[in-house]
């Protein structure tokens, strides 16, 4: 009987594995895991009827998830975008820059990627155009090694350093980096309810020492920088 139930667990895992990629990206292997775990429990409590319900739920939800995924993709194609997506320019009068890191102009560009955002920061400092290395933000709360866009290590980044991103709500994004459990830097990006402005709070350790910045940005069309 135990072998038979283990077979049911494996079958459950196999069917759950056929769920759409989008579903699996969000939920990981949670469904497979949970189904496998509850097979013996359901058998003990409800017998064959319970197992039929368990598999019925899995099979009924499968096409529903595919349909929802199609709708999500269609919606993504039709909608104007995520509240973060686009280009933002700092309003210096409303921003508290760290004296060591005060730009004449600063812009942020959020580009949607398959699993998060590509964040590009650029601006004008000391009369020269400057740009930071583009970073990816995957807002799933997981820690990932810090690598460049080609997946290669970055010079100057401490060994074992990881980055993370979280989406506290639809308008709040948090991203940061840490090494050995200690924070290297952290930023909170919060878009206003009308989607026209964004408050960015960043703090960490830069090449000129620790810094803290609370900057207000406004949404602007591209290109962001004023002509010199």
């Amino acid at each position, binding site marked *: 009987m135990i072998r038979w139930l283990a077979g049911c667990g494996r079958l459950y895992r196999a069917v759950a594995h056929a769920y759409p990629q989008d579903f699996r990206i*969000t939920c990981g292997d949670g469904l497979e*895991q949970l189904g496998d775990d509850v097979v013996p429990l359901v058998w003990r409590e409800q017998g064959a009827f319970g197992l039929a319900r*368990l598999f019925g739920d899995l099979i009924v939800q499968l096409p529903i998830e595919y349909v929802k995924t199609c709708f999500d993709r269609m919606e993504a194609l039709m909608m104007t975008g*995520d509240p973060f997506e686009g280009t933002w320019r700092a309003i210096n009068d409303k921003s508290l820059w760290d004296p060591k890191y005060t730009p004449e102009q600063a812009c942020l560009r959020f580009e949607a990627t398959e699993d998060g955002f590509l964040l590009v920061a650029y601006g004008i400092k000391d009369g020269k155009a400057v740009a930071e290395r583009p970073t990816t933000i995957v807002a799933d709360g997981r820690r990932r090694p810090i690598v460049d866009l080609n997946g290669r290590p970055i010079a100057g980044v401490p060994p074992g350093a990881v980055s993370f991103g979280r989406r506290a709500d639809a308008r709040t994004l948090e991203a940061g980096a840490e090494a050995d459990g200690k924070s290297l830097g952290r930023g909170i990006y919060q878009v206003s309810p009308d989607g026209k402005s964004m408050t960015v709070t960043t703090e960490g350790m830069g090449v000129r020492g620790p810094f803290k910045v609370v900057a207000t940005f406004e949404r602007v069309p591209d290109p962001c920088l004023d002509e010199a």
Partner: protein
Amino acid sequence: MPRNKPEAFLPLRSNWFHILLSLVGGEQHGYGIMQDVLERSEGTVRLWPATLYGSLKRLIQEGLIIESGDRPAPQFDDARRRYYKLTSLGQEVLDLESQRLKDLVRILTAKRRQEARS
């Protein structure tokens, strides 16, 4: 497109309400949510795994819950599991839905009283 205003989620789907309610005490994994809902409803509401994970996916997309990076102490942790927790938006939505249900109960009680008097 995620809805930004908590009011836009009302009335909240029953499954979503049960899941959010399970996360009020802190982060919880899928199995924990399923068991919590089952116990709280005295066995009347069972969130089957695919239904539960479909709802969890939707709640994440809508920004009502988030996968938690914090793990319980190793002796209480199950490394295989993902933990979820409420976002501030999720908390607001749950509060609003609770208030909506309370208002409905108050209206029903008032109507019953009125009916009894007449």
